[in-house]
Structure formats: C-alpha cells, structure tokens
C-alpha cells in the first residue's frame, strides 16, 4: 500500500521564506552597517574638530610667539640703535673735540652720522651775531631751510623750546607742539634740542624723518640730546681755542715786529759802533804820534843827552815814560779791537800743532809763573792735534787769559790749560782755569765789557786797561768761536773758549749774523 502522500511544502513557500530571511538579514546588516558608519563619521568628525582645535591653538601660540619675538626684536633693535648711536657719537665726539675752530667743527659733523642714527632730515643752526645760521642741512631744500631759520628766530613754539633748554621729541611733545613742528619741519618723527653754552642757547639741532618712516625711540632722543651737549661743549672749546689762537697769532705778529725793530736797532747800533770804532781808530792814531814824541823826549831827558837833569826831575820823567808806555799799550789794544771789529784786521788762518802753540805760550810766561811759583798744567788730549787759527792773534787770547790767571792766582797756586774733547762739531774747547781769588757773580756779566775791571785789591794795585778780555773775545769771535767764564769766589776762575780744528769746521760754522737774527 502506498503511503499516503505527504503534503510537500510548497516550493513557493520555501522561496518566500528564503527571500524573507535574506531580506531580514539585509535589513539587519544595513542597520548594523549604517550604525557603524555613523559612529565612524562621528569619530572622524571628532578627530577633525580636535585637529582643527589643535591647529587653531597652535596658531594662537604662534601669535604669542610672534608677539614675544616682536618685543624681543624691538628691545634688541633699541639696544642695537643705542650701541650704534653711542659708537657713532663717540666717533663724532672724538672728531669734533679736535676741531680748532667753528668751521672745522661743523665740517666734521658728517651727514652720514645722522644716516647711521636713522634720520633723513637734519638741520643744525648756531647763533651768529644774534641770528641763526645754518651749519648742516640734510633733506631740506633751500626755501624750507630759510623758512626754518626764520622760525628759529620768530616762531613762539620754537622760542619756548629753546628757552626750556631740553630735548623736545615726537615722544614727549604736546599735541600742539607736535602739530606746529610738523608744520615747520614736515617731519612726523623728530627731536629738537637747543645747543647750550656757558652764555646760554648758542644753537639748535633738529633731526627727524618724513612721514611713514621708522618711529622714534627714547634712545634717539637721548642720543641727540647728548650730541647737542657735546656740540655745545666742543663749540665753546673751539671758540676759546680760536680766541687763544688769535691772541697767539697777534702775539707772534708783535714778536716779529719787535724782532724787526730790534734788527733795525741792531743795524743802527752796528753803524754807531762802526763809527765809534773808526773814531777810536782815528783818535788812537792821532794820539800815538805825539805820545811817541813825548816818550822820545822823555827818554832823551832821562839819558841826559840834552843836559843833566836833577834826580827829582829824572824820577818824574820816568813816570812820564811809564805812563806813556801804559797809554801806548792802551791805544794799541784799542786799535786792535777796532781793527778786528771793523774787519780790517787781516787774519792769517792756518793749521797749527796745538801742542806747539801752547808750549810757546808756556815758554813766554815761564818767568812770571816762576816768580809766583805757580804750577802750570797742560792737558791736551791725543784726539786734538791741530787747530786752525791765526797764530799771532790766538796766542794773544791765551796770553791774556794766562796773564790774568797769573795775576789773580796766589803764590804757589795752579793754573791749568786744558783742551777738552769737541763740544761743538769741528771745534776744540779750551779752558784756562786758575786757583785764584775768583770773580763775584755780579761782575761776571760785565767782564767782557770795554774798560771794565773787577773791583778787587789786586786790580787796585796793578795797572790795567780793561781791554784784555774784550780783545780776547773779539779774537775768538773772529775765529767764529765762543768765549765764556765760570767763577767761584775764593775757589778760582775758568775761562772757556772754542777754536776751530779744521778749515772745514771754520767754513761751516755759521757766524751769528744780522740776517740770522732777523730770520729767527
């Protein structure tokens, strides 16, 4: 028997069931998917917002960094400006301090200084005869410059600023002052400082920049104030220096005038001296002839060739003879001096062995030295062998000095003739030193004057003309040498003189002439 057929599930039902199942699954999947996507989007959105917030926060931090950096940069720039300004100021101060006059001072204030300080406009004016005068102008044309100079004298705002004697700048001025100064100087940023000297305001300095330029800082104001003060001091110094310099120039002119007058007077003195010399020469000549006759007649009378004369008369005649000899000696000295002074004395220069010259003199004076038991030392170094002299004249110098030394040196004393190493190029220095009574200091200056004789006991007892040293001086000068004396009372006296050692030295040795005096 065939089982009863089971009622099969309709395939349609199965298909329907599957479709419904799949549909439900899709719905569930879609629901799940959509839910997850929203969550991701939400998460991404959150992340994005976080990132944006971080970005914005970083940007805000960046703003803070920039503002801090700006502050630091500004501080640094201010510091740099001060340092640069101080450097520039120190440089210009050094230069203007060396200025000798007003013109030079302002030449040394270069426009580049202000450029370095960051200013494009400068006007520096000083008071000159109660009116302002432009000393430095940078950035203003001629018309504007004239306008500003007029304003310095007449504008009430500027007058008030000058009166206050302090720096006015765009940082510290009142609105009214700012507006007025902008009008006058056409500069938004500025410093205006009076230049003050001891006498008050002596000028003013304006520095500034046009519109849209870098703003001014406190450092600028301080630097310009220091510069103004420095200019004021240097200006006063320069004016003072100028005054001193002018006075010194006037003095120099006066000295030159006086020197010229002296040279002229010297010429006159020389002329008079020449006339005097000629007069002495003429008179001496005229005196010598009758003196020779007087001496001749006196000698005849003493010798008894005209007849015997009583002893008393002889004695008087002898005195006449002695005094006549003194007079002849005096006249001869005068004539020699006159001849040397006038240049009429012919000098016969030649090179002579120094030792030979000195030994001759020693021989000549040995009797006198022996009579007073005076020791004569000769110190002639090997280095000096010859002297270039007129031997007959030069010997008179030695003889004169040595005779004087003998005269004033006590018995048993010492006299030294010493030739020193060359003090002057090509010249030998001699000294004749005694251990005599010495010469008072006051008399030393007059020693080489004509007819001067030191007032002492010896001179009172021993006759002399007072011309020996004058003659010696003239002879030394004729050799283009010098003579001088050092003495100490009761110790001794040293006479120094120089004589040439070679013809070259003599030729090269400049005489003290009238021209050289004028040139001096």
């Amino acid at each position, binding site marked *: 028997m065939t089982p009863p057929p089971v009622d099969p599930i309709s395939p349609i039902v199965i298909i329907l069931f599957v479709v419904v199942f799949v549909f439900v699954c899709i719905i569930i999947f879609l629901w799940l998917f959509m839910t997850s996507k929203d969550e991701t989007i939400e998460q991404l959105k959150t992340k994005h917002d976080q990132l944006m917030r971080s*970005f*914005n926060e*970083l*940007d805000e931090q*960046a*703003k803070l*960094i*920039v*503002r801090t*950096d*700006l502050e630091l*940069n*500004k501080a*640094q*720039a201010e510091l*740099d400006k001060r*340092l*640069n300004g101080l450097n520039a100021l120190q440089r210009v101060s050094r230069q203007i301090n060396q200025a000798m006059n007003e013109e030079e001072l302002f030449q040394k204030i270069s426009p*580049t200084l202000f*450029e*370095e300080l960051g200013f494009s406009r400068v006007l520096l004016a000083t008071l000159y005869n109660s009116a302002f005068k432009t000393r430095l102008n940078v950035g203003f044309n001629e018309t504007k410059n004239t306008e500003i100079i007029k304003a310095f004298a007449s504008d009430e705002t500027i007058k008030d600023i000058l009166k206050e004697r302090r720096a006015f700048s765009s940082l510290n001025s009142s609105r009214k002052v700012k507006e007025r100064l902008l009008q006058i100087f056409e500069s938004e940023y500025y410093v205006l400082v009076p230049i003050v000297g001891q006498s008050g305001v002596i000028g003013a300095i304006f520095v500034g920049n046009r*519109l*849209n*330029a*870098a*703003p001014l800082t406190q450092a600028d104001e301080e630097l310009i104030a220091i510069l103004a003060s420095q200019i004021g001091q240097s200006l006063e110094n320069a004016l003072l220096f100028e005054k001193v310099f002018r006075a010194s120039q006037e003095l120099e002119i006066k000295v030159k005038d006086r020197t010229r007058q002296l040279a002229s007077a010297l010429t006159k003195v020389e002329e008079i001296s020449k006339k005097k010399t000629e007069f002495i020469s003429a008179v001496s000549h005229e005196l010598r002839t009758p003196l020779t006759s007087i001496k001749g007649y006196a000698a005849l009378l003493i010798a008894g060739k005209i007849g015997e004369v009583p002893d008393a008369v002889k004695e008087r005649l002898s005195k006449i003879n002695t005094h006549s000899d003194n007079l002849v000696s005096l006249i001869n000295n005068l004539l020699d001096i006159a001849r040397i002074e006038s240049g009429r004395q012919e000098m016969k220069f030649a090179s002579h062995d120094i030792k030979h010259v000195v030994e001759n003199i020693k021989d000549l004076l040995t009797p006198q030295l022996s009579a007073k038991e005076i020791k004569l030392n000769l110190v002639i170094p090997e280095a000096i062998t010859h002297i270039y002299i007129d031997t007959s004249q030069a010997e008179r110098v030695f003889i004169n000095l040595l005779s004087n030394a003998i005269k004033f040196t006590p018995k048993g004393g010492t006299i030294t003739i010493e030739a020193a190493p060359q003090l002057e190029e090509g010249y030998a220095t001699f000294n004749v030193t005694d251990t005599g009574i010495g010469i008072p200091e006051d008399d030393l200056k007059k020693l080489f004057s004509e007819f001067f004789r030191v007032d002492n006991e010896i001179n009172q007892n021993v006759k002399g003309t007072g011309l020996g040293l004058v003659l010696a001086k003239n002879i030394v000068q004729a050799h283009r040498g010098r003579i001088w004396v050092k003495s100490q009372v009761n110790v001794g006296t040293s006479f120094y003189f120089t004589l040439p050692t070679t013809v070259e030295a003599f030729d090269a040795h400049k005489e003290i002439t009238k021209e050289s005096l004028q040139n001096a």
Partner: protein
Amino acid sequence: MHYVQPEVMPTIQAALKPKRLVGCSTAGILLEHEVMPRGLIMMAINSEDIPFGVGMLNLTTDYRNFGFELARRANLDLDRPQRQAALVFTDHTMRNGAFLKGMQEVLGVGFPIFGAGASDAFTYKKTYQFFQAESFSNAAVGLLIGGNSAAAVSTRHGFKPLGKPRTITKSNDHVIRTIDKEPASQIFVNYMGKDAQDIDKGILNTPAMLYPLGIYEEAEHQYLLRNPIDILADGSIVCQGNVPEGSEVHFMIATKDACRRAAIDAANEIKDILGGRTPKLILVFESMARHKLVGRLATSEMLAIKEVLGHQVPAIGIYSSTELGPMGSIKNSKHLYVHNENLLIFALG
C-alpha cells in the same frame, strides 16, 4: 653704492680698462668686519684661464624670452666653449622667475645660474645696473664665466614656518590679494596685533619686515620666501617676487643665530661642491631685508662664511633686493627661483 654719480663708471673704465664689467647698485657693502652703507666695491679678476662673456638687456614683460635673449648675448660674447656659471644682476622690478627658465633654455637646465636684484637705500624705488662704462635702470646685465674652474652656488634662509598653513586664494603676479579669502594684510594683523596697525602707511620700516611669507614648494619640500614691500589700500600685499594663486603660505620666523647657521650651511655646501678645491673668489648676495633682522650682527654671517671657506679667499658681499638661484644648490634642484630674504654664496674654485 645705492646711487650713481655720472662720472663713476667712465672713471673706472678709464682707470682699469676692464675687458668686461658688470655690476649693480646696492643698499650696502658686506665685508668680513664691516658693513658699509655707502661706497663702491669691486672685484677684479685677471686670468687667462677664465674667459668672460657679457650681455645687457632692457627689461620686458616677456620674461622667458627676455632671459633667453640675455643669456644668448652673453653666450655670443664668450669666445670659448667651456662655461662654468652665469651671473646676472637685474633691476629690482624683475620679480618673475620665468626669465631664469629662459636663461636655462640657452645655458642648460643644470647650469649654475645665480645673481641678485639690484637694491637702493631700502626704498625699492630705483636701482642701477652697470655694464661696461655705462649705468642703466630697468635692465639686467649678465656675465657668463668660462674656463675650467669649478663653480658652486648655494642659497639658504634659515626661516621656519609658524602657525597654521593658509592658502593664497587670490593673487596677480607679485601681489597677494587674499589669503584664506581675507584681505592678505590681515595675516600680519592676526600675528602681530597692534604692531601691524600702521603697516598700511608703509611696511618697509615696520617689524613686518622681520616676518616674510613662506610659499611651500612641493617639488623642493622647502619654503620659498616672499618679502612684503608694500600694502595696497585693499589690503593686498605687494611682494618682491611672484606668488602663485592657490599656494600654501606660512608666516615665517627666524632668529639671528638661525641666519648665521644658514650662512654656515650654505658655505659648507659650497665646500662640498668644490670637493677640496680652494675657492679663488667668493661672492655673497644677501637680502637687504635680512639685514633688518640680523642688525648689528650683520658681519657675523660673512665672518662665518670665511671661517668655513678660508679667511685668505677674496670675498665681497652686497645687499640685494632679490637673490637669484636654486633652492639650496643646483646639485639638488634644477629649478631656479627669485628668492627673498636669502643668502646666496657663489664660489669659483
């Protein structure tokens, strides 16, 4: 010198009788121990082994052809085939780097081309270019250096980006109109606050000069700096170099020490390129805007360069309005740029 006296160039010509002479005006002269705001500096080269070719051209706005023609003229003047480097001095208004591409078309893509934009007394108004016995404005002069010497060029700036990146949303040539759809100058207000309040009166003497804008160069992974030189009434920033629209832009910052480090890095790179050869001469072109940042330490960069390359090597530097050359060295980058705020070193070894 940032000015020119009519008699200067003829006098130099008469005194030295140079075969080739090129030069430009500058805001200052940079020496090892001194920065001179006024003066004249010359480097004279007397060598049979180093031939030169020169060219001069008045500026045109067809930048690429302009560069091509300038290079062609200098090349024609060079009487030997070996070429080592090309130096170019342009007027400060030449802000578009396309002319350097034009030069590369003549001289080759990997060829070291370097130079500087002439400068004045930091006003960006009038500059001069010197060519033989004459001086010009709105022109460029080129000097092609021949021979077998090794030439090395390196540029560095030392600035780092600060804050979030922004986008130049509108610009024309060298003017940034908007950044992130705001007037461009707002970027300075945002970062500098009250210190930026007067920049529209004139930006050159404001602290804004310390913070150039950096445009991210994808190809170089570096920042090309742009100096703001003016702010227009609508808040647009006038830059000393072209600024492509859509560029990522950053506010940039540096320290004095970073500037000195950059100089040392550039000098070391020069040393590497020369590979042990002693430099015969060094030329340094430094942005005059950079001088604002380094201030009194201006000579420290030159001193650092000479410490690396040798104190005995003749070296002169000038302050420039732009620096022309690769980003880094030509070894690493074949692209040439009009840089701002950079320090460029050239050495011939």
